[in-house]
């Protein structure tokens, strides 16, 4: 049986994969039927846009090993191209169905990917990161100078309801926009997943791991990086086009450094080592940016802190934490460590309460002092100028700190035991 693989490897119909994609699609369809409030629809729409953006960013960071500080340049310029085309279509000057507008954004992003990417991808590593930062600053400045294209500080507004309704779809109601975003999100996800299994996608991994050897198997590593960036910029542009439709306004903020920083945060929090990592990251990030920002002006502080903790203690992101637990479950060890997780989680909540109390009281005293010192947190009214709330905060810090430290040691010990067992079982 020479030449025949020992086991069947090429499955034309991969049941697990179809199930995963089918379930993802089902969740996307069903969610707005469960959470029907306008606020939930807004949140989910932004999650969908961010998923596309974060996945496109991970083509660079995770797959290609390119740390970019300026990825919002491509989504943002894509959004601007889309908004101008939409306005032309709205004025009846060109024909353009709204459903296809994200594609316009994608082509816009790809165009600037060809242009800027040619410069940035000349080098890899730190130099690449520096040049992307330079390009980001450049475009950010350009946005304040060129009013015709960027619309000055107030940006460019638009109206997404154009043309005649098709099958009753006007794209006026938020839920219709959500479904448009969901379709584009699903298609983009599938295409980006497929890309990671193409020759270019695999060679991008090779260039990430060992650029020198890639040159000696026939690949021009500059080209590999450039082409990867163009495709990544295309999908970033699609997310930009979707945001144009969703917000009906594009302001220079979309090309800002903080937008570029946001996608880096989201992607890293989710985990760059797995395809689904950035999807989780995008969901968490949108939750911070959309939901949490309704409750506290310090949401960026919490996000930043969360990011720092992830980088320090779980550099593989949420995805790697999940995958590690799945491995424990598969080897029937999860239930042994689960109680310790629970203890760590509970004591972690105490620490979180201490953190929130401290941050919100500080915020009330400094930024929000015009509104007095009486504030409401978790349904309790209190005066943060008094000593008692601060004493409570200190108490929570101490108790939470001690308990969490104990629980953390337990988790580490049991984790170590389990790993040793698994290693011995393998040997």
């Amino acid at each position, binding site marked *: 049986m020479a030449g025949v693989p020992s086991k069947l490897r090429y499955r034309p119909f991969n049941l697990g994969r179809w199930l995963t994609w089918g379930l993802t699609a089902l969740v996307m369809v069903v969610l707005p039927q469960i959470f029907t409030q306008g606020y939930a629809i807004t949140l989910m729409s932004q999650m969908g846009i961010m998923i596309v953006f974060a996945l496109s960013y991970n083509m660079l960071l995770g797959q290609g090993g390119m740390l970019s500080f300026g990825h919002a340049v491509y989504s943002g310029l894509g959004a601007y191209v889309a908004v101008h085309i939409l306005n032309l279509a709205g004025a009846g000057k060109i024909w353009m169905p709204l459903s296809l507008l994200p594609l316009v954004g994608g082509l816009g992003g790809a165009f600037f990917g060809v242009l800027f990417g040619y410069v940035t991808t000349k080098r890899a590593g730190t130099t690449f990161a520096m040049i992307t930062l330079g390009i980001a600053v450049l475009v950010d400045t350009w946005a304040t100078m060129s009013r015709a294209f960027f619309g000055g500080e107030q940006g460019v507004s638009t109206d997404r309801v154009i043309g005649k309704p098709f099958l009753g779809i006007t794209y006026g109601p938020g839920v219709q926009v959500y479904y448009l975003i969901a379709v584009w999100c699903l298609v983009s996800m599938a295409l980006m997943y497929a890309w990671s*299994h193409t*020759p270019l996608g695999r060679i991008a991994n090779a260039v990430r791991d060992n650029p020198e050897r890639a*040159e000696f*198997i026939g690949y021009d590593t500059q080209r590999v990086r450039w082409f990867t960036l163009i495709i990544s910029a295309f999908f970033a542009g699609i997310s930009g086009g979707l945001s144009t439709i969703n917000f009906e306004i594009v302001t220079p903020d979309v090309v800002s450094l903080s937008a570029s920083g946001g996608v880096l945060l989201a992607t890293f929090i989710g985990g760059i080592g797995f395809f689904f990592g950035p999807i989780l990251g995008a969901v968490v990030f949108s939750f911070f940016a959309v939901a949490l920002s309704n409750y506290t002006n310090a949401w960026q502080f919490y996000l930043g802190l969360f990011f720092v903790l992830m980088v320090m203690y779980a550099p593989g992101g949420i995805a790697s934490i999940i995958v590690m637990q799945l491995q424990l479950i598969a080897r029937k060890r999860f239930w042994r460590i689960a109680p310790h997780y629970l203890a760590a989680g509970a004591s972690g909540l105490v620490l979180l309460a201490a953190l929130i109390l401290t941050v919100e009281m500080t915020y009330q005293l400094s930024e929000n002092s015009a509104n007095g010192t009486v504030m409401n947190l978790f349904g309790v009214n209190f005066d943060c100028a008094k000593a008692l709330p601060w004493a409570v905060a200190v108490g929570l810090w101490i108790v939470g700190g001690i308990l969490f430290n104990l629980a953390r040691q337990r988790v580490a010990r049991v984790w170590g035991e389990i790993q040793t067992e698994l290693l011995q079982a393998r040997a």
Partner: protein
Amino acid sequence: MNAHALELKAVSKSFGNTAIIRGVDLAIAQGERHALIGPNGAGKSTLFNLISGRYPVSGGKILLNGDSITGLKPFEINRKGLSRSFQITNIFQRMSVFENLRCAVLWSLGYKYSFWHQLKELKDANRSAEEVMEAIGLKGRRDTPAGVLSYAEQRALEIGITIAGGAGVILLDEPTAGMSRTETADAVELIRKVSQGKTLIMVEHDMGVIFDLADRISVLVYGELIASDKPENIRGNQAVQEAYLGTEAH
């Protein structure tokens, strides 16, 4: 194909004021197995780096199958049919053995920068990768990440990646360095097998390996070729003996 597989004409290389390679002339015939030997620091690896485009030459010309490859980049030289291995293992550590080899066949099969093919559908690439994997004896390690292979296995994979693209001229830099006696014997058999019908140039220290494999031997000392001849003539060459045994005062 009357041209030499590889021809070096007065090739030189200096780093700053230090001349490492001093006017090397060398012609290697099609299908020849050629060994490059010399004391440590003679410039053997540097010469490989010049031929494969890792470093630019300071002077002289390099011809591959009669065409100049002087000044070309590594990937351009590779596409013209020259492939090399490295003295220090240089593989894709995080990828599986199979993925390493599949990456190495993609360009030569014409898939280039394709983002419209799915890898699992590429029957020719998958078959080639499987064949090379079989040839280098790593079939049982198909899905193992290259970084966790044993040293000898990594050296075999290093050779596998080098030959997978089907290059006609193969440069192997110390393929058996650091190997045990049995591992070396296996490696020699592997090299003999995979260099069938190809031109092979290897840097090697193990004289057993050299006299076993090489049709001709070149001796490089302080960046100069002092001899290039058949093994039996090299063995009796006075200058070579002096260089190796150090009878010449320096």
